[in-house]
């Protein structure tokens, strides 16, 4: 199990895998937004939390098809399926590897991007906390979407159509938590809801992803 995780991580590090890509994409989004809405710093400060959350979501989406597609193409997914590891574990490991390579860097660098977006000082802690709580759910849900579309030729666009509606609750609670943090309001309720969603998806969704993957490998 750990070997699989290490293998996935190593693959992501090497050969221009998703590791730096997500961050670069995030940076581009943050750079482009002021061009779109204008450079007024008070406006940017107001929408900063939402933009950062949207950027995290899109950066996550961008790297989803890499989770399973490469393994599917070279046949190592079939090998993994015959391994003594249950499919649920494989899927969870895949999601974890995806989070470590895209979600975690985003969380760590979010304060820097917050700086670019003129985020008020009170907002940093809630923002980082909300991303830390929310991005694992994004990875797990994304793995489900990737498992659904793994056998398809033109899966990319379909993948976003399937996954984005599933991201709605996470996005709402995550962005709400960050926004309330910026305004100095109480963040407990959205934080608990966000944590609940993340725990629920981590606990339950791997079963669905594994079932889907088994169907696709049939």
């Amino acid at each position, binding site marked *: 199990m750990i070997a699989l995780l290490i293998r996935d991580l190593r693959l992501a590090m090497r050969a221009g895998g998703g590791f730096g890509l997500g961050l670069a994409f995030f940076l581009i989004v943050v750079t482009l937004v002021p061009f779109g809405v204008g450079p007024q710093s008070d406006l940017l400060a107001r929408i900063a939390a939402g933009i950062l959350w949207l950027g995290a979501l899109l950066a996550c989406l961008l790297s989803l098809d890499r989770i399973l597609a490469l393994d599917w193409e070279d046949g190592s997914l079939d090998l993994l399926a015959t391994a003594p590891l249950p499919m649920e574990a494989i899927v969870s490991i895949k999601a974890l590897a995806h989070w470590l390579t895209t979600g975690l860097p985003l969380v760590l660098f979010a304060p820097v991007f917050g700086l670019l977006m003129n985020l008020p000082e009170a907002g940093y802690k809630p923002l980082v906390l909300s991303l830390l709580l929310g991005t694992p759910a994004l990875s797990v849900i994304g793995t489900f979407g990737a498992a659904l579309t793994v056998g398809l030729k033109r899966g990319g666009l379909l993948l976003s159509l399937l996954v984005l509606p599933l991201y709605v*609750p996470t996005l*709402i609670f995550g962005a709400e938590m960050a926004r309330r943090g910026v305004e100095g309001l109480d963040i407990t309720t959205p934080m608990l809801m966000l944590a609940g969603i993340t725990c629920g998806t981590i606990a339950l969704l791997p079963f669905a992803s594994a079932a889907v993957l088994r*169907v696709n490998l049939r």
Partner: protein
Amino acid sequence: MNLNALWAYANPKKFIQATDRVLPWISILAVLSLVVGLVWGFFFTPEDYRQGSTVKIIYLHVPSALMAINAWLMMLVTSLVWIVRRHHVSALAARAAAPVGAVMTLIALATGAIWGQPMWGTWWAWDPRLTSFLILFLFYLGYIALWEAIEDDDTAADLTSILCLVGSVFALLSRYAVNFWNQGLHQGASLSLDKEENVADVFYYPLLVCIAGFVLLFIALVFLRTQTEIRARRMRALLARERMG
């Protein structure tokens, strides 16, 4: 009726025979009640003292919104039946219902927007109910797209039914999340069994007829489309056998 007898209709041939027998009646009833309900509602109901004549939109808005949700529920049930008992008709019925549900959602959204313009002064407000319906519409689109994208029928049925299950959970979550996110302009439930005073009787009876019409129309369309799916699948099977032989 014995519940076990219901499973007999999971046989495609029997399903086609049975639905062929009832389909004309249901269609006639659907058209009849739709025409009666809408004409009654449009021509013979008074104006609301606050909303003026826009209250007449209710005869389209409420039934279509109801059917938009019920269609998804029906897809959820038939998906479960497919997963548990693997009756092909069930999976195909879910596939047949999805576009109907999507159109119902679209009607609810469109009439809602048109109604909102004079009442709230805006075509679109990020009101919880409107937003949830938009999200529901996205779910329908994803579901239909997944059916279209997969070639193998059984794989498609498996994957879409799991998507339907997962999607239902997330749709419900989104509903509550959206509620939490924004307080709405929307009025509360306009229809419920115990609180009839919500909608005055003059509006209530034609509305019931319209709802019946939408339900019947939905059933007729789902029967017809399921038949089509069964035939299309049989056709593919025959063609494949011919090519092999």
